[in-house]
């Protein structure tokens, strides 16, 4: 394998887990920034996990039927009413952004500055596209369908609260990610990391961005498809 993380004399498998965790020493043999980002993402996992669990609780406990997401999020294009089409497009946009981000990390480690920055800008552009479509979706739901956090004409009153809370918090993460990516990409382009030759920061920013995509996978499945 091209990517060995163990030196030959070290224990492997479960023994490496025990060896790394035992005794009074460094547990995570990765750069500090990366470990910290992972710990942050872990805490974020719990936040979104709690949101989705709360949504499950509300939905299960509601005696009033839950609005059918397939119909709520349908768009009329031409004469055809296509269910969930905007959400599908948003999903593809976010996956594409994850793809360009992965390529950016790859270029960063090959120290290809211009390409890295270009791919990161492309990722940020996909992110902006995603948030814009979400803004469109929110406008449609608030203005045309009369969905409010405290009630809606379609069914269970808790639908609005769950929807705005979960997608809103996710949208906030995407927006913050766009700013984060733009900041790092600008620095890369200016050659800020040229001297040290350490482009770890791109991978760390990438971790955050992939996480945002990851959360959307769960929101898409549980909120829109269920």
């Amino acid at each position, binding site marked *: 394998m091209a*990517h060995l993380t163990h030196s030959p004399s070290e224990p492997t498998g479960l023994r490496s887990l025990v060896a790394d965790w035992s005794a009074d020493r460094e547990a995570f043999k990765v750069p500090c920034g990366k470990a910290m980002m992972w710990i942050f993402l872990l805490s974020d996992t719990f936040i979104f996990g709690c949101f989705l669990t709360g949504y499950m609780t509300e939905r299960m406990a509601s005696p009033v039927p839950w609005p059918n997401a*397939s119909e709520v999020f349908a768009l009329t294009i031409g004469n055809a009413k296509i269910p969930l089409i905007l959400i599908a497009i948003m999903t593809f946009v976010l996956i594409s952004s994850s793809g360009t981000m992965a390529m950016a990390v790859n270029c960063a480690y090959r120290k290809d500055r211009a390409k890295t920055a270009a791919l990161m800008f492309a990722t940020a552009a996909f992110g902006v596209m995603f948030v814009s479509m979400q803004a469109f979706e929110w406008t449609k739901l608030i203005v045309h369908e009369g969905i409010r956090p405290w009630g809606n004409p379609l069914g269970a009153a808790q639908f609005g609260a769950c929807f705005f809370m979960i997608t809103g918090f996710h949208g906030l993460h995407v927006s913050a990610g766009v700013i984060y990516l733009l900041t790092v990409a600008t620095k890369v382009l200016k050659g800020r990391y040229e001297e040290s030759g350490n482009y770890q920061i791109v991978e760390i920013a990438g971790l955050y961005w992939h996480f945002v995509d990851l959360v959307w996978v769960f929101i898409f499945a549980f909120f829109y498809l269920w």
Partner: protein
Amino acid sequence: MQHESGQQHPVGLYLKIWALLFVLSTFSYLVDYFHFHGYLRWFLIVTFMLLKAGLIVSVFMHLAWERLALVYAILLPPLALLVLVALMAGEADYTASTRNVYFAPAQPAAEKAPQR
């Protein structure tokens, strides 16, 4: 240590995973488009979701190549959420049954989900 080189994988791998994620997303969209219902729908949704999540975490986030100590520290704690889900499912069931007893509008009895 791998500080200098970082995570270095062939570009082709990322492109393959990217394509695979597109295909899986299309599948999960089609589950809705073709109106699958009941257990089949839930099974398909969860399967595609877990496959997508697994691909993103293991390849895009490079967890497949990280040290086991970090992998376990990241993947084990979220399992606690499953306990929360189980507890809240029980709680929600109870809430639903009491709501059906006390708050449901007077209608023919045994109506499970009355329209407002």
